[in-house]
């Protein structure tokens, strides 16, 4: 369970990233955060694994206030939280397997990991997760030989290798074309259902949010302006969140299957 209590974040330059957020996210939920760019979606997500540090309030992940964590404690928390990025963030020159196994770093000793010594179990886990996203045949390819969609699938495999309790995805499909976007979202949804991993995804496409989310949180200017199950959401809701009428660019569209 994740709980935001009166959480605020002011950046050093004075910009308010988050304003007094109070949200509770239950285990196993698939939450999509929507909002225009600059609305604070990214800050919201990055507060959870403390890639950014909120300035006020409290944020509980599994009954631990992440604001109080530091050093080793923080790294231990992060091993339980997987994160997927818009630009995949793979090391392009390294092989797929090396990228995936880097999900085990939080569990592995520094010296061992620098010398690339991982247990057989870790390697198998990495391979199994590549199979889950159907990309196991690229095991020894370099990451920069893969297409965008393939790279994003590798980064999902990396996250799974962490054995996370929670997955955060920051605009995971913004750099992909419509069919690939649906494919990536399907994998995320499938993992959410099968492994009961709480998943929080930032999106700005309203059709994709409607299709995959259990619950939608709308943000504008650092504030939560909507929070409810997907069944309560209509186009009107999005217009209220965005503060303007819905345009074509707000929809990903495209086929649902490759």
């Amino acid at each position, binding site marked *: 369970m994740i709980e935001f209590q009166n959480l605020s974040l002011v950046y050093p330059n004075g910009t308010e990233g988050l304003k007094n957020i109070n949200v509770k996210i239950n285990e196993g939920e698939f939450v999509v955060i929507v909002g225009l760019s600059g609305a604070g979606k990214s800050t919201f997500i990055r507060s959870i694994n403390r890639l950014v540090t909120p300035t006020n309030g409290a944020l509980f992940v599994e009954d631990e206030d992440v604001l109080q964590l530091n050093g080793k404690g923080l790294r231990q928390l992060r091993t339980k939280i*997987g994160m997927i*990025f818009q630009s995949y*963030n793979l090391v*392009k020159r390294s092989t797929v397997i090396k990228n995936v196994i880097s999900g085990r770093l939080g569990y592995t000793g520094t010296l061992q990991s620098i010398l690339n010594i991982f247990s057989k179990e870790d390697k198998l886990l990495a391979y199994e997760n590549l199979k889950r996203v159907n990309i196991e045949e690229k095991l020894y390819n370099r990451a920069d030989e893969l297409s965008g969609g393939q790279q994003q699938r590798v980064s999902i495999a990396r996250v799974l290798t*962490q054995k996370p309790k929670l997955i955060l995805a920051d605009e995971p499909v913004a750099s992909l074309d419509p069919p690939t976007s649906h494919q990536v979202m399907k994998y995320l949804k499938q993992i959410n259902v099968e492994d009961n991993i709480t998943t929080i995804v930032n999106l700005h496409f309203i059709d994709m949010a409607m299709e995959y989310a259990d619950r939608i949180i709308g943000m504008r200017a650092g504030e939560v302006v909507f929070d409810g199950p997907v069944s309560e959401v209509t186009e009107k809701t999005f217009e209220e969140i965005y503060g303007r009428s819905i345009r074509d660019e707000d929809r990903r569209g495209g086929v649902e299957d490759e």
Partner: protein
Amino acid sequence: MNKHSSYVPKGLYPFKTILIISLSLIVVISFYLISSIRTESFIWHFFVKFPNVIGLIGDFFPPDWSYLEQVWPKLFETIHMAIIATTIAVIISIPFSLLTANNVTTTTWIYQFMRFLLNITRTIPDIILAVVFVGLFGIGAFSGIIALIIFAIGILVKLMSEVIETIDMNPTEAIRASGGNGLQTISFAIVPQVLPQFISFSLYVFEINIRASLVLGLVGAGGIGQLLNKEINFMNYPAVSTIIIIVFAVVVVIDYISGKLREGLV
């Protein structure tokens, strides 16, 4: 070209550009004249003194090939010095270049301090380093190696920190987000991106060290330069030309090999 009643563009460039260019040309040329006079070196002097050069070639040729036997040991010493110095310099440079890259070292004062240190180090000529270390540790290869190490660190850290500053920082965020610590982030997200260039620069520094160790010998810091210095003082020009030819050949061969290796890397 101009002064007509109707409007005719005055030249192809705006007046300001012409002014700046003419002024810079005047500065460049007058400075050239001053320095030529000061250093008593007009290029035509070269042709005036050309007979000297011809005469000199007579002094230098033919090279004294029997001298070769004395060249080999000192040549190998030069190569050994360069190998040891490059190896140690590479190892020391790794942490220093991380500290001198502003995307890894986000603490401003550490970064600024390292930059300052690097810039100072880079301005010290290798020969002064050698002079100081020969003064401290006496004549021999050891002083030369220490001088080469410091000289090489200056070059390597500059090149490396620039490469590190251009890498893709996104993977480091991913590693941090999955709970990796500082060293793991460096070895998984940074090292793979910079390793080929790092090896390439190390070979490049090795080439530079071979040349530099030649200079160091002139002040007694070991290597073939020491031999060169001795023969120049004895005006034994055939021997000098043997040394020069050997050095030339070695530099060409090493440049070639390391060039090939570097091509294979990138």
